[in-house]
């Protein structure tokens, strides 16, 4: 017998790097309309293949096809387009405001607008999201005022979070949006806990957890799946697979698992993959999962397949680690353009109306910004007080902190 070959460490690497030709030929994309829509009370064991496919509704011609189509009216679709366009315009302005020094930091959604905007439509008032920093569409589509978001971004005197949080780390209990943590993945298991509480209390409200592809590697992700599975928690667990975690390609977090969705299978949780750039598909899948949760059928894991077109944040430059033109090669297209095309196709929209809407939306965003800036920006105008810094650590300020505040002279 010959001696065994020495062992080798496998380190996954992306197909391409800067300077290479972008290549997504390895991404299997099923035809729109080709994936069946099972009943919500299906036995999870019967739909294991949905964790390896991609549910799509909009085809290349802009038609809505297949069993997942037809969940939204024309008005609702136009509304959805508006939400995505608003988020995009909002991002553009805030990105620019950061460059002008009006805030310290910003994170945009470019390319991922459909995910949070369409999902929000499937929820009811009272449901609770446990979001990451890349789901501002939940707020925009949920009617949270842009001025409030900007006040938070500018850390100004009207900031609802008193300047304590990093820009974009919003919180709005009223709008079903849990306080964002900078520490990845912590919210995913908390969403399960909130859902368990709703079930313990015989309530009817459900929770939605959110996590990025990279962050699924955290232990909290796996904790969420086991608790959700064990207690059949009324929760929708969303993975936003935008292909990148800062400079790290999704293969590092996914490892040998075929897909992120497939992580759910070992826990007996129904797992679906959806075209995250298809507003209609995201909504249809969200609706399906929300109904399951609401009908005591337990958790669902959804992998939204999308692409982070922009930089990770204003502190990042992706040209250092991926080809500059990679986003153009992304095969699922742009969510705004795809929904626009569909609306035109069904005669509910036109290029003229689109251009006009773009201008109107930009005006709204600019007006909101003007309003917010009246209350100050990070380095000028009104700011939260130094006193605010000491408040809110506890319900009642303990004596040692009071002493520190007095010593600080505020």
């Amino acid at each position, binding site marked *: 017998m010959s001696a065994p070959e020495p062992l080798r*460490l496998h*380190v996954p*690497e992306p197909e391409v*790097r800067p300077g290479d030709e972008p290549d997504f030929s390895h991404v299997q994309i099923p035809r729109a309309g080709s994936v069946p829509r099972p009943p919500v009370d299906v036995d999870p064991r019967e739909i294991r293949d949905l964790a390896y496919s991609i549910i799509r509704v909009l085809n290349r011609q802009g038609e809505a096809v297949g069993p997942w189509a037809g969940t939204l009216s024309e008005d609702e679709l136009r509304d959805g387009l508006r939400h995505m366009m608003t988020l995009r315009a909002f991002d553009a302005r805030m990105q620019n405001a950061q460059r002008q020094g009006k805030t*310290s*930091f910003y994170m945009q959604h470019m390319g991922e607008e459909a995910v949070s905007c369409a999902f929000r439509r499937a929820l009811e008032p009272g449901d609770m999201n446990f979001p990451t920093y890349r789901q501002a569409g939940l707020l925009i589509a949920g009617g949270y005022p842009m001025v409030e978001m900007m006040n938070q971004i500018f*850390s100004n005197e009207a*900031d609802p979070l*008193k*300047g*304590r*949080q*990093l*820009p974009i*780390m919003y919180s709005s209990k009223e709008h079903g949006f849990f306080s964002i*943590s*900078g*520490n*990845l*993945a912590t919210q995913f298991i908390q969403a399960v806990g909130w859902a368990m509480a709703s079930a313990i209390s015989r309530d009817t409200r459900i929770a939605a957890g959110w996590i990025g592809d*990279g*962050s699924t*590697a*955290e*232990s*909290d992700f796996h904790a969420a799946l086991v608790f959700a599975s064990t207690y059949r928690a009324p929760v929708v667990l969303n993975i936003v697979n935008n292909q990148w*975690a*800062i*400079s*790290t390609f999704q293969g*590092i*977090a996914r*490892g040998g698992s075929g897909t992120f969705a497939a992580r759910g299978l070992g826990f007996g949780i129904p797992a679906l993959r959806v075209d995250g750039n298809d507003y209609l598909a995201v909504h249809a899948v969200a609706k399906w999962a929300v109904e399951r949760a609401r009908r005591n059928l337990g958790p669902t894991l959804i992998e939204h397949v999308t692409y982070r077109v922009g930089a990770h944040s204003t*502190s*990042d430059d992706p040209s*250092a*680690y991926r080809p500059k033109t990679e986003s153009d090669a992304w095969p699922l297209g742009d969510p705004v353009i795809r929904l626009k095309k569909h609306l035109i196709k069904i005669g509910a929209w036109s290029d003229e109306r689109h251009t006009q809407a773009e201008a109107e939306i930009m005006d709204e965003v600019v007006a909101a910004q003007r309003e917010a800036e009246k209350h100050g920006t*990070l380095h000028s105008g009104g*700011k*939260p007080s*130094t006193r*605010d*810094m*000491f408040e809110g*650590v506890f319900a009642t300020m303990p004596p*040692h*902190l009071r002493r*520190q*505040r007095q010593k*600080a002279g*505020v």
Partner: protein
Amino acid sequence: MARMTMIEAIRSAMDVSMGRDEKVVVFGEDVGYFGGVFRCTQGLQQKYGVTRCFDAPINEAGIVGTAIGMAAYGLRPCVEIQFADYVYPAYDQIVSEAARIRYRSNGQFTCPIVVRMPTGGGIFGGQTHSQSPEALFTHVSGLKTVVPSNPHDAKGLLIAAIEDPDPVIFLEPKRLYNGPFDGHHDRPVTPWSKHPLGEVPEGHFTVPLGEAVVRRPGSAVTVLTYGTMVHVAEAAAGESGVDAEVIDLRTLLPYDLEAITASVRKTRRCVVVHEATLTSGYGAELVSLVQEECFWHLEAPVARVAGYDTPYPHAQEWDYFPGPKRVAEALIATMEA
């Protein structure tokens, strides 16, 4: 000698260590191809290959846990946690495992790992990019904790840490990465290239763990500090007119008791300065040591200047940061006491 920023010095320490010892491996989030979000590992993957410098999944417990396993095998992992604020998922691996493996196996297994992480505020990073958690490590038996204040020491200490037979927590004050920040946030920072401690030997050298250094000799009061606050304390001494002796501890555990007591017995006064929150901070340990060892020499109560006991705020960063003004006030008050 070469001119280096603190980032370059830290990179050079890993480069030198990897070049000398193929047991040294480097990994962490975004550490491989990209070279780390602060670029401390830039070029190392290219030079040493993907099995010696690689990207890790985002799981800090996993990063430290695998490092411990590698160390048990016989490697010398030097891992990066992207920000000190994200080390908590790894806390169990560090506290219950890395710190105790030598003790509980009676030396059959050891844990020569280094866990590097950027620490401290001053970059408008809000509560999750600004924390100084050193006391959470100095409180644990079996861990060494290091906080450099300049490129020269960063390189020498990091090489010493990598070569050390026990686990070392290596906290890098991120506000110092590109220059000696003295707390005057409204003034431009001089780059390390214009600072004597930006001069760093290119090859192998060490700054031994456990040795403090006098950064500014003085006769009136001893300032015990480390990291960013070394520069703040130096500025405060100059601005207050108090002839303070500034001691840069460099290693918090094991600490250099001799350097501490020699200075305090000379000046008879002491101010302890750190950016971390006050209560149960590392400063409390320093004050106790000074009290135990120098009580009969003291002419004034030992004072502390530290971060307030609140999470690190975003907008109020400069109200929170214990800058030169607060340090100067403490120096003056200690002289008047």
